[in-house]
């Protein structure tokens, strides 16, 4: 039934099936906490931790989870790890924890995590589930860093709070406001759609050239 190799499980989530940019899952944190690279990093790290742990746990316990209540069981598993991550962050990075606020707890309802449990971890062995979770987590991190970098550079003229353009830079206030999140996501999706479109057009031309030869 399974047709993918372990390496495919890992690679897939990073770019080709990127959870945010292709599957459009986990948009809430992607829009809400990417106003600076630092917040994006903290959010990615927490999500990465949660998705890896819960994928492994769900996959190892899949025989004990009754099919009828599986979603609630996944949520329970995820919530456990979110609470852990929440407390860890509060203990070791209280400032960052304050910045993320409610979005830390909202990782529980991140569809990307739940989606991986339902679509992959509940059907595969723990090792593969871990690979899949790591790949998806990296994909999520890439997407958040892209958005956070774009927004922080335009919105404050800095990257990781290191000023890039000197004190005279005029910040685009809109980019650190919520509207900037939507704009940035739109820009990135536009660019990706355009690249895809170009790629397809090139393939068609190449094929035509081949048949003509």
């Amino acid at each position, binding site marked *: 039934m399974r047709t993918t190799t372990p390496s495919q499980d890992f690679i897939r989530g990073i770019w080709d099936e990127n959870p945010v940019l292709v599957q459009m899952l986990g948009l809430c944190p992607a829009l809400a906490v990417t106003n600076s690279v630092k917040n994006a990093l903290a959010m990615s790290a927490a999500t990465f931790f949660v998705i890896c742990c819960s994928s492994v746990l769900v996959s190892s316990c899949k025989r004990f989870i009754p099919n009828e209540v599986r979603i609630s069981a996944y949520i329970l598993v995820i919530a456990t790890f979110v609470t852990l991550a929440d407390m860890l962050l509060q203990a070791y990075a209280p400032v960052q924890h304050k910045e993320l606020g409610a979005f830390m707890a909202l990782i529980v309802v991140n569809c990307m995590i739940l989606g991986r449990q339902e679509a992959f971890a509940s059907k595969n062995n723990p090792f593969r589930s871990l690979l899949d979770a790591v790949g998806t987590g990296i994909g999520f991190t890439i997407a958040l860093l892209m958005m956070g970098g774009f927004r922080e550079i335009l919105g404050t003229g800095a990257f990781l709070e290191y000023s890039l*353009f000197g004190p*005279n*830079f*005029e910040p*685009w*206030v*809109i*980019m650190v406001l919520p*509207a900037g999140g939507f704009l940035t996501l739109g820009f990135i999706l536009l660019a990706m759609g355009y690249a895809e479109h170009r790629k397809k057009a090139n393939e068609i031309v190449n094929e035509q050239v081949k048949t003509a030869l």
Partner: protein
Amino acid sequence: MTDSIVKITASPHVRSADSTIRIMWSVVISLVPVIAASIYFFGPSAIFVLLASVAGCLLTERLFGSTPGSLADGSAMITGLLLGLTLPPGFPLWMAFLGAGFGMAFGKIIFGGLGQNIFNPALVGRAFLQAAFPVAITTWPAKTQHWWTLQGDNFALPFMSPVVDAATAATPLGNLKFGDDPVVTPLLDLFMGTTGGSLGETSALLILLGGLYLAWRGHLNWHIPLSIFVSAFAVSGLFYTLGISQFPPMFMLLSGGMMLGAFYMATDMVTSPITNKGCWLFGFGIGFLVVVIRIWGGLPEGVMYAILLMNALVPFINRATQPRLFGTSGKKKEADNE
């Protein structure tokens, strides 16, 4: 589109000399007095800001416009001029250029070009600038001594803040709302345009002339500006007599972007309702929202947001004001639902 030379359509066949190109260019012509006045009042700064904004629009249309020849129909030109006229004279040129490009790309081209857009592209550009650079867009320079001095740091380097400190002055609206000793600017000054403000919004007289010319040519639906004025006058009159607001009704009509917005932005053929009844609803909504935003909003001016909000409602207004189909029974709706 078929390639056939002969186009066969159902009757009735109406011949008209109007085309998109003619309408667009007569709008440009009607703007000439307003532009001339802005140059007279604000000097070379006005020319630079307008040029930057027009350049941004034309370039965006040229690069991303989907239909060939869409540059020649003049709609990009109008968007550029209108956006430029809503900006303060000391505005950095790179911001004007950026806003124009944004307005064109995300207000118009992304929806499929002229005729497909939901929002007025010039106002989308301005709303973006308002959100991105709130300080620069609300800095109105004081009158300079000589006509030829720049009104601010127009030539700030791209992505850099304006550095030259120009003396600033409040607009009539800002003065009345936030000033230390609020004064109602004399109506004659507002009417003639000898006040501070954005490039094209100062002289109510010239905008009125341009608007009447367009209405006479049939290029704008006079129901829209009239309904905006009626509702703004009535609502602000009510609040003024009740003692809730400090804006006298006539002041409300003549100050800020009201005139320019009512005649040139709200009447955009693409983003206004189809039926006259719909236009009245649309205009009433704008007038009401302008007054509400001006009295209770965080900014002194509300015309832009009022028009954009009502733009979003246009499809619903169109649906609600669909003319009755004659010759059908009243039960058509039920049949549709099934």
